[in-house]
């Protein structure tokens, strides 16, 4: 069951231009959280902006499971306010919310499907927690990470220190392959190796392209969606995504409750 608690800010650091890592003391959320889930985080005391912001659980650091880390990029007024919050203050934190990623069963002999993590921009935030869970199941994932330019590639050390193979792409070619992250993904899916399990998080056009590639090549693919999300608990019906319906048109599903993780093909992006 999700809980709403006043979480103390234990650490709050700029890790790159416009990108921050915040650690919150939230034991009941930390103990219950699974990779791919999120929290609704208060960004300041006031009423403008009014709404909380959905934030992926980036990590549950340490063995004691008392803390939750979130990684965010300043993109508007809400995240701007959040970036000014000081260590020692408290922020209302509601979670864990959403369904999270479907994880492979713990391995007993045999080989698990290789895991490909596909991140676009600040979508990277969802993956450190997933990497920890996959490694515990004996899966060593490969990260394909795309961003606008080299300065937008953040948190690489979190992956390298966990033994993750990292491949990079930038739109301006300032680091890694020039182009979109799908340029890294496509040859892997069209190769002859075993079918991978894809976990993707990033901007909607990226998710659409990744989902299409996966469906075309027969790879299993989970997409973690972002959405305008006023409540996060399934009651405002604001965060819906269109899904294949019938002659009467699409049906809509709540990203906060039926998602944020959907299988490719389940959603029409």
């Amino acid at each position: 069951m999700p809980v709403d608690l006043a979480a103390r800010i234990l650490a709050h650091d700029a890790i790159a231009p416009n990108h921050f890592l915040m650690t919150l003391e939230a034991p009941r959320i930390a103990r219950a959280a699974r990779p791919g889930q999120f929290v609704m985080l208060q960004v300041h005391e006031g009423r403008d902006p009014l709404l909380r912001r959905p934030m992926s659980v980036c990590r549950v650091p340490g063995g004691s499971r008392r803390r939750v880390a979130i990684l965010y990029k300043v993109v508007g007024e809400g995240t701007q306010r959040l970036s000014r919050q000081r260590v020692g203050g408290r922020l209302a934190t509601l979670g864990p919310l959403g369904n999270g990623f479907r994880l492979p069963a713990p391995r007993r002999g045999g080989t698990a499907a290789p895991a490909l993590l596909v991140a676009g921009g600040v979508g990277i935030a969802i993956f450190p927690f997933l990497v920890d869970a996959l490694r515990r199941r004996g899966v060593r994932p490969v990260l394909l990470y795309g961003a606008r330019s080299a300065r937008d590639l953040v948190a690489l050390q979190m992956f390298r220190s966990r033994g993750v193979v990292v491949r990079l792409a930038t739109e301006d070619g300032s680091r890694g392959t020039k182009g979109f992250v799908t340029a890294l993904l496509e040859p892997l899916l069209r190769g002859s190796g075993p079918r991978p399990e894809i976990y993707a998080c990033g901007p909607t056009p990226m998710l659409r392209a990744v989902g299409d590639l996966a469906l075309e090549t027969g790879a299993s693919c989970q997409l973690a969606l972002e959405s305008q999300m006023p409540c996060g608990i399934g009651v405002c019906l604001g965060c819906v995504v269109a899904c294949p319906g019938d002659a009467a048109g699409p049906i809509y599903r709540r990203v906060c409750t039926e998602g944020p993780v959907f299988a490719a093909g389940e959603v029409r992006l």
Partner: protein
Amino acid sequence: MSRPAPKNVDVAVRLGPLELKNPVLAASGTFGYGTEFDAYFDLAALGGFVTKGLSLRPRRGNAAPRTCETACGMLNAIGLANVGVEAFLDEKLPALRGRDTKVIANVFGETQDEYVAVARRLNGAAGLHALELNLSCPNTERGGMAFGTSPAVIRDVVQAVRRAAPDLPLIVKLTPNITDIAEAGRAARDGGADILSLVNTFLGMAIDLDSRRPVLDNVVGGLSGPAIKPLALYMVHRVFREVDLPIIGMGGIASARDALEFMVAGSSAVQIGTANFVEPAAPLRVAQDIRDWCRKRGVAAVRDLVGTLRLPAGPERGAVAG
């Protein structure tokens, strides 16, 4: 000079045929079907709650984006997505029986016949305590607000629903998107409403300047949140002075002080709406803080505050701002 603090504050209120253990309700469209909030507090702590608007058949709602944050508030254009009255009766209402709080069904139709059919279906349902007629939703092509802006139409639909659901207290929810809300209130009273609830959201829009497109797929939406509180408070004030029916006030209420201001203006009870999105336990907090405020101020019964606004002496003011 303060009066001695009462040990127990009487927070019960009565609105015509509807008795509430306290004046705090959760508003339609912000509280799902109630059980979504079981994780956060005991529904029995509320005077009651109002379900998502129910139509005769399930509705899928509008395309995304459906919401947009604005200064001190938000716009929504959900399009009354709901499970439909049959699924409500089969799947949602059974889980609410015996909760020791008032369950109020919000009723929506695209035609007068649909309003009547939904109300008839709900009349007599075990565990249901009142109907709230949604004559004020701005986000559907037909129905809702179209019904809420013409006094003659309001009177007719209220009268028809009154006959179709004779056993349930009838609340009529008014739109603020009208020249004189008091006229709509009088029409609802003439049709047989027991209680008025006001206000629903204000029509608004948001534009993305870079693309020069409306932010909402529906182009227009309903504005809610603290941004609308002064507007809503004024409308409650006006209807209280013009229409002789109990009022449930709402519009940007997020604290006990907000709620009590609405009561002083003439509301016998209040609904908490958008605040539920920001803080799921907001209605619980407001209910508790109302009790505390009354205790500290020596108010023995919260109902004694209703309509106690102290107006300046002299010629009538308040109709026109200058």
